[in-house]
Structure formats: structure tokens, C-alpha cells
């Protein structure tokens, strides 16, 4: 066991580092209310006497203009940012997988219609679409999540459809069909379990980008609203203090960078494992 682990870590150093960092973030998100030194600061407490203090032992990341402990805000913000990203992906998966299942199984004009619609949505940048939708729905965290999900699903539709196409005529599907099972039941019970793996893998690799986009929307004022502690929002609040109080924007941004990097490193590792092929030399 120990030897296998060492072998793996040495060959996939970056992925291993990513996994460790990610584990720290997930633990933080779960335990934040208990480990944050000043959990009340995220719920609206202000300490005018402590405003804009530089990092110290009391306040490892300093304080903001309301005297709130930035370390606590960043810790609690991990729940919003990671959670928001996760929910977005789940929504996008729900939409994308449903449409992909229908398109792949039904075929014909329905397939054509769904896939052309997918092409159209894929035809322009997802951030743009998310901004347009979020701007329309009005600024809130829920709307931002919805807007991102609405611009993110087409990738999964494409993936699941190609999986369904390859499974549609498999023996076990034919058997289910002959025994009179309804299409919905066949899709959910027989096809989905066999088609879902690559889509879930892809979705987990997209989590980093989604978290980044969510932070961007919040920074624009289209995502989380005060006093919700969200990383992008904290940075937006801190932008007037960039030159005078460097720590205000630096630490929440560092949290985003670390979390998204970890997710991307793990995603790369996952991709390497799944698409392992012999490489050439030069």
C-alpha cells in the first residue's frame, strides 16, 4: 500500500498536490462555521474600532473597512463559492443529460432540433450568455447560478448523446425494449447508468471554470449580494482599498486561485488517467 502510494505520488506529483489542496478546501467549506475565528462577521457584525487592520495573529488576513475579520469571511466564503459552483454543475448536468438522453434515444427531428439548439448555445461564449441572463434576471446568487447553468449545459448534452447513440442498440437495451419497458424507464434504468461516467468526469473538470465565472459575476455585482461572504464579492468590496490596504483583495483572490488551480490539476490528472496513451519522444 505504502509503496503503491509513493509510486503514484511520484508519477503524478501535480495531481497529488491538487488533491491535497482540494481536500483542505472541501474540509474548510464543511467546517467553516466551527473553525472561523469570528463567524459572526459574515452575518453582519461590524467592529468599527478594528477597521482595515493589516494581517496579524488576531486577523491572519487583516480586516475590512467594517472591521470584519477577512480570514473568517474567506473561510465562510468557501461554502458559497464551492457550493455555488457545485450546484451550478448539478443543474447544468440535469438539463444537459435530460436533453442528451432524449436527443440520442428519440432520434429524428427531435434529435435534430435539440442538437441545433445546442449548437446555437455553444455558438457564443458562456460568460457572455451568463452575464446577459444574470443581468436580465436581476442580481442575486441564485440567479447567477441559474444563468451559468443555462449557459453551461450544451457540453453535457453532446457528450451524453454520443454515449446514448452507442448504447441504443446494445443487447440489454433491446431486451428491455422487447420486454415492453417504457422508453423513460429504459433511459433511466438501463442507458443512463452506462452512459453517465464520461459526463460526470467532464463536469468535475469544469468545476474550476464555473467557480471562476461565479466569482466574476459576483465581482460585476451580478452574483452574491452583501453581506453574503463570497470571494468575488469580497474583492469587489475591496477594490477601493487596493492601493492603501493590499491584504483586502489579495487573500480572497488567493483563495480563488488556489481552489480553482487545485480543481484544474485534479481534472488534468483525471483526464490523463482516462485517456492514457503511449506518447512519442523528441
Amino acid at each position, binding site marked *: 500500500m505504502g509503496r503503491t502510494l509513493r*509510486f503514484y505520488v511520484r508519477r503524478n506529483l501535480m495531481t497529488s498536490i491538487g488533491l491535497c489542496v482540494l481536500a483542505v478546501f472541501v474540509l474548510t467549506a464543511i467546517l467553516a462555521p466551527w473553525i472561523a475565528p469570528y463567524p459572526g462577521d459574515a452575518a453582519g457584525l461590524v467592529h468599527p474600532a478594528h477597521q482595515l487592520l493589516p494581517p496579524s495573529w488576531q486577523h491572519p488576513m487583516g480586516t475590512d473597512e467594517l472591521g470584519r475579520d477577512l480570514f473568517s469571511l474567506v473561510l465562510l466564503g468557501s461554502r458559497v463559492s464551492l457550493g455555488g459552483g457545485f450546484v451550478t454543475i448539478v443543474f447544468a448536468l440535469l438539463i444537459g443529460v435530460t436533453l442528451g438522453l432524449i436527443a440520442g434515444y428519440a432520434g429524428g427531428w427531435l434529435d435534430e432540433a435539440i442538437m441545433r439548439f445546442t449548437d446555437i448555445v455553444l455558438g457564443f461564449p458562456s460568460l457572455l450568455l451568463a452575464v446577459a441572463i444574470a443581468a436580465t434576471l436581476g442580481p442575486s446568487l441564485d440567479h447567477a447560478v441559474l444563468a451559468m447553468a443555462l449557459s453551461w449545459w450544451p457540453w453535457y448534452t453532446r457528450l451524453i448523446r454520443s454515449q446514448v447513440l452507442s448504447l441504443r442498440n446494445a443487447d440489454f437495451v433491446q431486451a428491455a425494449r422487447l420486454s415492453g419497458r417504457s422508453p423513460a424507464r429504459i433511459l433511466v434504468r438501463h442507458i443512463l447508468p452506462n452512459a453517465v461516467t464520461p459526463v460526470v468526469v467532464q463536469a468535475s473538470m469544469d468545476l474550476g471554470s464555473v467557480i471562476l465565472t461565479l466569482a466574476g459575476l459576483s465581482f460585476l455585482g451580478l452574483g452574491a449580494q452583501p453581506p453574503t461572504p463570497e470571494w468575488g464579492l469580497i474583492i469587489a468590496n475591496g477594490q477601493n482599498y487596493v492601493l492603501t490596504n493590499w491584504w483586502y483583495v489579495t487573500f480572497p483572490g488567493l483563495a480563488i486561485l488556489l481552489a480553482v488551480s487545485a480543481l484544474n490539476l485534479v481534472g488534468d490528472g483525471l483526464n490523463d488517467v482516462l485517456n492514457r496513451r*503511449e*506518447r*512519442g*519522444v523528441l
Partner: protein
Amino acid sequence: MALLSMRGVHVVVDTAEGPRTLVRLSELELAEGEMLGLVGETGSGKTLTGLAVTRVFPTPSIRLQGGSIELGGRDLAGLGERELLAVRGREVGVVFQDPNASLNPVFPVGRPLMDLLGLHRSLRGQAAVAEAVRLFQRVELPDAAALLSRYPHELSGGQRQRVMIAMAIAAGPKLLVADEPTTALDVTVQAELLRLLDDLRREAGMSVLFITHNLGVVAHMVERVAIMYAGDVVETGPTRAVLKEPRHPYTRLLLEAVPRQGQGRLKAIAGTAVPRSEIAQGCAFASRCPFAQDRCRAIEPALEGPGVHRAACLRQEEVLHV
């Protein structure tokens, strides 16, 4: 005098369980101006043996573990990557099996040739063009000057193979390693290419290591053959002798598997080739050999026999007289 002499060449592939042996060659020699046919099934290690000379293997996990590869008296196995660079192309030319994959589709076929001429013979500009045209004519490509600026997909398979040969002989190497150069082509084109290689050999005094899985291809063109099985040579000698009086049971079975006129079905060799790495001791062929005895599974046979016709078989006299 031998131009190329390979001894104890050991090629391995790195796996999670450690290195696995692919080739463990007892010996292989090639005289100056000689064409040697290196014959074996897929997976016998014949291609890797040929590639070991320039140490350009298909993947980074395959590497030369040991042995000596003397070319004109110098051991290539001891050279570093930088020194080998001067050997590749200049002293040893290489031709690959698949003419479709071996030319870059997004460059005119003359481009890599002229770049090689610039690199190895310092020919540039008009001089490079002129020499490229001459080389194309030498490999009997029609309309050589116009062909230089054509793309690979505009050429036939045989023409592409000739382009590759032109590239391989561009720097006038002493040795040409031809890895199944005719396999992907149809029979008449195969014959023409073989004749071309033979011409080039005679004209330039170049030695050719001709790798093939088809005994029939080498039968008429090649003076001497070496038969490979599981990463080692099991029989070697003058082509005529080896084909007429095989001393190794594997060669015998291989010959029976060659389709001949008038013979409808060809006999397959029973069993599958066992990788070298899985043979702990004894003869590598024992598990498939109709002649195998207990001692065959215990003792690893060396290449031996009367004169130049030798086989690695303890029972070669019996095999010969069946």
C-alpha cells in the same frame, strides 16, 4: 569484414512492474555491401532490433538496456544522444513501414528532404533543389522536379515509399535499415521497390538490413537471412540453405505457413508467440515446438551449426532430417 555487428543487444520496455525484455539478441552481423533479411512474426522484436542501431524507438518507454552495436568498428551503444545525432541519417539511413504515416501531410514531400540535405551535406537553395531532384530520379520517381512541391496525399503509396528511400540515402549512409518497407504496398510495387533497394546497394556499396515478416519477399533478393523469434535470432545462414534445409523447427513451420502457388490453405503455427520476458529458462520456442523435449525447457540453446548456416536448436539435426 562486418560493417555492423550487434552482440547481446538488450531492449526493454518500462512498465509499472519494472522493465520487461523485448529483445535479447545473441548476435547479428552484416557485411559491407550485403543485404540481410531479418525475418520474424509481429512481436518477434525484428523491428526493435533494427531501430536499436539508431536508438529511435516508437515510445519513450522502450530503451536500449545493454549490449554492443558496432558500426564500422565504433560501438554505437556507448554513444550519447548528441553523438548519435551525427550517426543518424549520415551513417545509417532508415525507412519505415507505413508510407502513409511516415511523411508529414502538411509539407510538400521535397521539404524534409531538402532540409536533410542542408543539415547533412550543407546544401542550400538551388544546390539543394538540384540534389533533391537527382535523388528523386535515383529512386525512379517520375517528373522529379515537379514532385518536390507535391503533398504526400497527392502521391501513391509506392511513390511515397520512394520519397522515404530518397530521404534515407540523402546523406549517403553506409547502412540502410529498411523496416518492412514493402508490406503496405501491393505485390508488383513490392517487387519494384526490392529491385530498387538491391540496385542502390550494389551501386553505392551500401549494406541493407531488410526487415520483413514475409519469407517469400526475401527469398529471391536477399543473399542471407536471419530468422527471429521472441527477441532473438533462432537461425541464420544463406537464404537458399535456410529455405531449403531449415535447421530450426520455427523456420520449418514458418516456411509451411508461406502461401505457395497451388497450395490453397496455409498452415498456421499452433499456439501464440510467447514474449521473451515470460520465458524463465530453456528454449523460447519450446512451448510451441513439436520437437520439444525436457532438455529444451531446461537449456537455452546457442546459435551453432556447420559453417555459416547456424540455428539455436538442440535438436537441429533431427529437425533437418525429418
